[in-house]
Structures are given as C-alpha cells and as structure tokens.
C-alpha cells in the first residue's frame, strides 16, 4: 500500500491514525468491490470448458486472449461504436444544455405554476417506463421517427427530470450575493446564468456528463425498441446478443469478454472527468 500522507506534520498523531484507518477500510472495501470484476476478467480469459468447473478456478490454465478478439468481431465494435458515440454525444450536449438552463428557472425565478411544473417534472421520474413506452412508441411511429436515432436523441433536449433536479439542488446551495451584484452591474438574467452560474457548476456538469454518458451508453432497451435495423444498433444492444437464446444459453466466457471491452469507454471517461466530477463547490470560488 502506497498512500503517503501528504501533510502529516500539520496533523496530530490521532488524525494520522484516522487517515491510515480510513485508507485500510477503503482498501478492504475496494477489494470486495473488485471481486466481481476480477471474476469477470478471469472468466473472460477462460476456454469454454473451464468456465463451468467446480470448485471454480481463478487463474485460467491457458489465458484465452482470443476471446477478446472473438467478442470484438462479434460485437462489430467499429460500427456499433460510431453509432453509440453519435447518440451519446448528442444526448450529452442536449442534456447538459437543457438541464442547466431549465434548472435555473426552477431554482431562482418565481413564477405562478413554477412549483407545479417542477413537481410534474419530478413525477415523471416516478413513472414506470414500461407503460409510457407503448404510447410513446406509437407516437414516434406516427411521425415516422422509428428506425432513426431521433427518439433516442430528441428527448434529451427537453430537460431530463433527474438532471434538472440535480442542477436545481446545486443552484440552490449557491449564495445569491454573486447574482445580485452582477444584476446591480446591469447583467441580464441570461448573462448571469451563462457567466456566473455555469462556471460555478463545473463539477455538477461533469457529474451530469458522466451520468448521461453511462446511462445512454448502457441503455439497451430504447435502441432495441426503436432501431430495427441491426446496422443501427449500439454497443449495449450488441451485448445482449451474448446472452444467447432461451434454448442454447450464454457463452459465458465470450459474454464476459464482451462486457470487459464494453466497460472501457465509460471507464476512461470517468477517469478523465473524475477530478472535476467531485471537485467541491468551495474550490470554484463561491465563498468569495
């Protein structure tokens, strides 16, 4: 374990102990969290015959890297990746804009019916998707959007309830003084939103970006319902093919190899974004 305590000189030995204790706890918890992943990677490197052994083995006798190649080709990765990233990036732009914009109205501006609309919006979170699915499908079908990316993309531009809520909660924690002084300097409300609120919201926006990415990237139900042409499928849909049929059963080692590959993009994004992702509101200079 190599987690040097940076400023132990300033801290008492009790605090040092606490930090070490925390690190130890995290290490144990991290190991527990990692077990399923290790099991996944272990399985993904096995040959078919070694998958169903009892008791199970952790290290395959012969590492089957070829499983990744097979899964990669089967995933048709290059095609599905471009579909996926087209959808995901558009959805991300739409979500970030609409959520941050709309939330400002809910957080700061008073208007008759505002709370009602907000409650209505939140209520949509509670709506089981399975049931709006059919009417929504019929509607999109009617306007000829089925088998295009539009049913997956368009709704993102109209404020996802979850993220509007998230943004609003964060806006509320921001003190009003900044906006008031800007208002005094003659800024419009839109300028305030753009020049003051948005820069302060970096970490929240990063959070939403990652959530949106993960959610859209992993969603297999919507693409499957709306896209009937298999050249338009996404990575998540391709994954479901590895489950196998009811009558033949999954190829567990290939499924696990495919899942391992599919985890890489969101993982990379997260590793890049995570510094902003959790950066505190303090560091963005609110206190000033």
């Amino acid at each position, binding site marked *: 374990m190599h987690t040097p305590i940076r400023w132990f000189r300033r801290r008492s030995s009790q605090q040092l102990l606490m930090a070490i204790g925390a690190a130890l706890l995290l290490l144990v918890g991290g190991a527990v969290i990692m077990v399923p992943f290790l099991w996944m990677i272990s399985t993904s490197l096995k040959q*078919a*015959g070694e*998958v*169903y*052994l*009892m008791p199970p083995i952790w290290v395959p006798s012969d590492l089957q890297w070829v499983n990744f190649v097979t899964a990669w080709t*089967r995933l048709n990765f290059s095609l599905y990746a471009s579909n996926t990233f087209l959808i995901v990036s558009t959805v991300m732009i739409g979500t970030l*804009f609409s959520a941050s914009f709309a939330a400002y109205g809910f957080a700061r501006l008073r208007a008759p019916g505002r709370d009602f609309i907000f409650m209505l919006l939140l209520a949509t979170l509670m709506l089981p998707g399975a049931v709006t699915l*059919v*009417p929504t*499908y*019929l*509607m999109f*079908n*009617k*306007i000829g959007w*089925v088998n295009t990316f539009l049913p997956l993309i368009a709704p993102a531009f109209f404020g996802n309830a979850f993220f509007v809520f998230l943004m609003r909660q964060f806006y509320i924690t921001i003190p009003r003084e900044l906006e008031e002084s800007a208002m005094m300097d003659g800024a*419009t*409300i*839109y*300028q305030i*939103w*753009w*020049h003051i609120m948005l820069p302060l919201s970096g970490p929240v926006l990063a959070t939403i970006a990652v959530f949106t990415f993960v959610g859209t990237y992993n969603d297999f139900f919507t693409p*499957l*319902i709306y896209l*009937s*042409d*298999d050249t338009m499928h996404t990575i998540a*849909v391709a994954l*479901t*093919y590895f*489950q*196998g*049929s*009811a*009558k*033949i*059963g*999954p*190829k567990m080692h290939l499924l696990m190899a495919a899942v391992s590959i599919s985890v890489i993009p969101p993982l990379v994004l997260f590793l890049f974004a995570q510094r902003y992702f959790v950066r505190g509101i303090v560091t963005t200079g609110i206190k000033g």
Partner: protein
Amino acid sequence: MSQEHDTPNGALNRRRFLRTMALGTAALAAGVLAACSATQPTAAPEAPAAPATDAATGEVAKFKALMWSNSPVLDENFKKRADLFNAKYSGKYEVDMQLLPWDQYWPKVDLAYASKDPIDVYFWDVQAYGHYKQDLLKNLQEDVNVAADLSNPELYPTNLFDVWRFDGSNLFAIPENLQMMQMYYNKDLFDKAGVKYPDSSWTWNDVLAAAEKLKISEGDTVTQWGFDIGDLGVWWGAQTLAWSQGGAFFDKIVEPSKFTVSEEKSVNGLKFIQDAMYVNKVAPDQATRSIVGQEVGIFGSGKVAMTPGGSWGMSGYTDLKFKWDVAPLPKWTDATVMPYWFGGWVVAKDGKQTDAATAWAIWCATEYQQTMAETRDWIPIRTDARNSAAFLGGLPAGFKSVLDTLPDAKLGDMYHKAGQQILGEVFGPILDQFWNNKVTAEEAGKQIDEKANALLAKG
C-alpha cells in the same frame, strides 16, 4: 449557445410566451390524438397500403423477416440464407433478415402489430399462437397446396403438421425444421464404469440402476453423478413421463380445457423425477444443479453421465473434450412418447408484402432444406434432407434412432391465449417449490390443476 450577449432583456415577452404555450398545447393535442387514433377502435385505420402490389408493378418487393439470435454461427447462416433467397428471386423479392435477442423478439413483433406496421414474416414460437387468435396471421394453406411437395407424406411428416392446423384444417405457419428431446450420455464415463450405453430398449428404471453404478462419491461429496434431470425439470420434459404412460398434463394441445397434472400418471412421472434427486439420490438436487445453472454446463462439465435434453443442445456440445452420444428417451414400461417441436414461419396477414413473405416461408421449407441439412444448424423438416448423409454424417451416431421415434412423437407445446400466464404464474412458482422438494408430487399436481384451471376459466 451564444445567445448570452444578444438576448435583450425582456425580448421574450408575454405574447411570445403564450405563443410557445399554444404551440406546446397543440403539439400535445396532436400527440395524444396520434396515439389515440392508433388505439381507438372508432378511428379509421390508415388506408391499408394496398397489399400485394409487388410483382404487378415490376418493382422489387422488399420485406422484413425476423428471427431471434441463437449464436454467431447460426445468425450468420440466417444472413447467408437471405442472400441465397435474394439471389434466386433477384429483381422480384428482397428479404431483409434481422435477428434480435430472444428477450426482445416478441415485444418487437407485438409493438409492430400495435403500430399497424407488422413484421412481414417472422419465426414461430408459441407466442405467435396469440397472433393467430387475434386473426393477424395469414392462412397459408392455399400456398402449401400450391407447393405440392409440402403435402406429400413421402416427402414431409405431414401427419405431424395436423396439430398446427389450429382451426382444424388450415396451416397458419409453415414448418421448416423440427426439434426433439433425447438422452445425452457421456461415453467416457460409461466406459470407465463398464456400463452398457443407453439405447431405445431402456426404461427409466434402467436409468436409475445405471446411474447408481455411475455415481462416484468421495466421503460426503459426490464427484460424479450418474444422471441429471436436465430438461425433465421443464414442464414439457416432465410431461413426457406422463405421456409414456398414456397420460398428459392437459387434455389437448390446442386450446386445452382442463389441466390434469394431479392425475395418477402425471403424478407418477413427477414423483420419479423428484425421487431421482431426493430419494434415490442418483441425480444432483436443485441446489447442486444451480452450481452450474445452465444445462449446457452440467453435462458439459463432464461430471454427469447422462441427462435428457433438447436436440438443440447438440450444437453447444461440439467442442466438448469427452466422447458423447444420444439415445431416445427411455420407456416408462413398454412405450416412450417423445416430444417434438416445429420451427417455422408465420406471415402477417396485414403485412405490406404478403406474397413475397409467403414465398420466403415456402422456399425455406422446400428448396432451402438441402442447404439446411448441410449446415446442420437445424433439423430439416423435409424427410430426405433430414435422413441424408450430409445431415446425419456430422451428428452423433445415436441421433438416427432418436429421429426414428418421430412418427409416434407428440408436440411439446401448449396453445392457449393464457398459456404464457399459466406457465409464468402457475407452473413456474409451483415447480420451483417442487424441484426443491418443498411439496410432494401430489400437492404440486393439485395446486397446478387448481390454479391453471382457474386461469382457463377466466378466459
């Protein structure tokens, strides 16, 4: 996103806001109307695009065929099959073959019906019987009559088709392949134990006796099982034991009116399976079976000497490290009744290209049969293709003896509107308890009959 500088304060005035609201309301109304017109019986359906304009106009009739995804190789061969068809009917018909994961297959087909834009031709399973009941399927009998071979008992097992004449005389689906159930056995384990291989003369008691000899224990742990219940753990598998005694789980396959799982022959069969696990202890119990979870795995692990399973399992066993073969299911005392299933195509009555779609279904069941035999993905429905050396040559030696039982086989399905619900809400949970030895065969049978008959009565 550069509106921040040029948005004059208050430019968006009240009127514009109201206009936006009005637009939104109009859109809402349109949306609701659109959705309603698709669902309200009173709304006139969109003028159904005049079907079967295909050949007349000289245009290529493009249509969509749907199948569920099985495995990379099988899926690939479906695409190749489509290419063959398109080459043959070049300039006339063109099929767009799509494969979906099983879980999404039926929702997709159903949604297509809901939006009045049905999939032209799709692969059969019991769910399609519901589509027949709603009068959504094309009656294919005329087309079968035209393709004379399909009615020739010399060429096709036409007597097996009868159960698929749901209205008593017409075919609404064209079978292209079939599946059966069989006893898989691990030859290496039999050789090692010096036990004779199973054959068509075996009874289920012979299975128990052999399994006893094939079981190996180290202390308390069993390291090798003589038998695994395999697909006997599914309702249609369990039912074969009742069949072999002359009983059944319900009175008729199409539109059953009464469940008879509590009758003696059904109970005997169920009890045999339960006892193999919990009394004779020659087969792993449900808890132990879940170690592997997939039937593929239990037999594939090489720790089980024999297990009954569907013929579709064979393709998954091609790369096993031990020698294996198959035999017909054992007899109860003097007879065995094997289950069979059809694979085939149904054509949506209101599809836009019913003629082309029908041509596909017929072609799959006739001309394509020899290629199907060669790929060995499916068991061809056409008898000479099924018995050809090209087909049997690549399969275990015992498979021929399984196919020989076909004339006496019975369809392992149940066709009823409430079928899925009966299986999901009655058979599922009660058999869960039964396989875990929590209820006896008598109790399970009684509960199933009670609840299933109640669901039938509800209609």
